[in-house]
């Protein structure tokens, strides 16, 4: 398997010139993006700019019109169905609303992909489901509940546990902290950072949450006008003179979030 590297770091997702449109409206006009192994990438952009579209294109829910996407060095367009499924098993997706199956209990939701992909005894699957629940900060008491009985934060945690069910290498998170209160969102960010360290995950996070961006993300990529106009650390973002990025990272709302972080570590060069 050919694995592209960039400056010594392994590139796990490589998107080049991705074009996606709906009808005669072109949403992505040649977006380029690299995601490195083991990093948490925050992906930002205005509402309706196509952040989720690029994520959904990478995971194959939306067809692209042009460009190429390589995951683990494999061009997704050139894979046979079984090879593609093997790749899909190496990533997990957390959808914005959780997308838990409403007719299955939490336990059944967590075991769904495991049951389909691995032939494991029920007892082991039960124990692993409990282990996954504890990893996301819940416990075995929610096992028998249905998704409609869970609160918003619990739904996100269960959905994250389900995304991690097969021990993926990449997790895609679509606005993981939206709809959570600031404390819940902070906890969730910390959880993602912990899991990323524990499991060695690569995290691709679509988000609007400046707190998430400044606290857990290693790198930030910005989508504007259908292209990825910048990618780099928070410091790079703050230095940018692009009008939209200036407004986004140095606007009134941003100053409150990022300023707090800067105050906490005055020695930083940002």
């Amino acid at each position, binding site marked *: 398997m050919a694995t592209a590297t960039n400056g010594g770091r392994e590139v796990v997702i490589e998107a080049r010139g991705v074009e996606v449109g709906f009808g005669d409206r072109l949403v992505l006009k040649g977006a380029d993006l690299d995601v490195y192994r083991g990093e948490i990438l925050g992906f930002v952009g205005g509402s309706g700019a196509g952040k989720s579209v690029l994520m959904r294109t990478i995971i194959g829910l939306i067809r692209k019109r042009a460009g190429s996407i390589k995951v683990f060095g494999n061009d997704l367009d050139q894979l046979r169905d079984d090879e593609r499924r093997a790749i899909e098993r190496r990533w997990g997706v957390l959808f914005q609303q959780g997308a838990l199956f409403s*007719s299955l209990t939490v336990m059944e939701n967590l075991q769904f992909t495991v049951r389909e*992909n*691995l032939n494991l005894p029920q007892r082991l699957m*039960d*124990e692993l489901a*409990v282990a996954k629940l504890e990893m996301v900060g819940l416990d075995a008491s929610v096992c028998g509940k249905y*998704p*409609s009985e869970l609160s918003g934060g619990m739904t996100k945690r269960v959905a994250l546990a389900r995304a991690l069910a097969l021990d993926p290498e990449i997790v895609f998170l679509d606005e993981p902290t939206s709809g959570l209160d600031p404390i819940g969102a902070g906890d969730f960010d910390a959880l993602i950072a912990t899991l990323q360290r524990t499991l060695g995950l690569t995290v691709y996070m679509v988000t609007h949450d400046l707190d998430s961006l400044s606290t857990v993300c290693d790198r930030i990529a910005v989508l504007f006008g259908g292209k990825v106009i910048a990618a780099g650390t928070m410091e790079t973002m703050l230095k940018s003179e692009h009008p939209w990025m200036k407004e986004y990272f140095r606007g009134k709302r941003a100053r409150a979030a990022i300023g707090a972080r800067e105050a906490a570590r005055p020695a930083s060069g940002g």
Partner: protein
Amino acid sequence: MKNGQFLRENLQGNRLALTGAGAWTSVNARPLEAQIDRLRQAHPAVTAVTIDMAPVERLDTFGAWLLERLVRAFETHGGKVEVTGLKEDYRGLIDEMHAVKLDELDRRRGATSISYALSSIGENIVAVGHSFIAIVNMFGALVSALLRVVTRPLSFRMTSLVHQLDMVAWRAVPIILLITFLIGCIIAQQGLFHFRKFGADVYVVDMVGILVLRELGVLIVCIMVAGRSGSAYTAELGSMKMREEIDALQTMGFDPIEVLVLPRILALIIGVPILTFIGSMAALYGGGLVCWLYGGIAPDIFLSRLKESIALNTFQVGMIKAPFMALVIGVVSCVEGMAVKGSAESLGRQTTASVVESIFLVIVMDGLFAIFFASIGM
């Protein structure tokens, strides 16, 4: 799969030295688990175990959990277990696994099928009790809303009532006409076919008249209404409940019972007797038509025979039942609608429950009415 691929064992007295190998990942979880379970059973007397994990190439949650399980298996038998050679990257994962508590899972698994069956019977009985209470509750709320409306007639939602009447009564007329007409035809045809064998053709008129006016007219109409309008009520109220519209109404100072439920149930109470009348007439018409065309009973004979066999009270029995049945259908469908919770699946479940429950209660009520009318001699 070659045995000993993931763990090599070296037994010295009561000390067991294990050496891990291969990739302890999800795809290998099954053979690895089999080997771990076998190890535990093969060495019950071991008091000290060392596990060297250095040669293990990769470890994921599956492998980490199975390692933890191996450790726990020996520790519960009083053994001392030492894990060495773990890569530092995996330390966090192992710690996570070490903290996993299975008490809850064991407790759930401990429940046998008998206790499960008993608890499910118990839960169902409690659920029936709750739904009975909910129906009584709704009935009370309805009466109090009605009293409030009577004291302030201007606050009554007339537009809503007329709209609901249009939906449940006027638009139901064609299908009710068609179905009751066909039922009348079928009863008459079956009656003629069997009564003819002993020359009692003309009694078919008695049978059709009494059956349709006392029982079938109102029952068929109620079953149709429960399926057609009751389910619509549940779905409407349920989706409003799901999207918090009912909560919104409440915060604006409206009583959802008064605004949503009362007009709907009143519409049914007015509409169902009318539909019952129309349906009974259509069934008699169908019966008469079959008697004439198939049984050779001329319309004037049919009519005079009908006059002799039925009295006004036969007709009254059917019509008196209609509004009560309408009330039951209305209350049940609104209760079920209000019981909808967040998910789309719950909406479907409540709608089904609403139709099944209303048809069941309509038939039970019909039986109670039969006893009642028999004892007062109607």
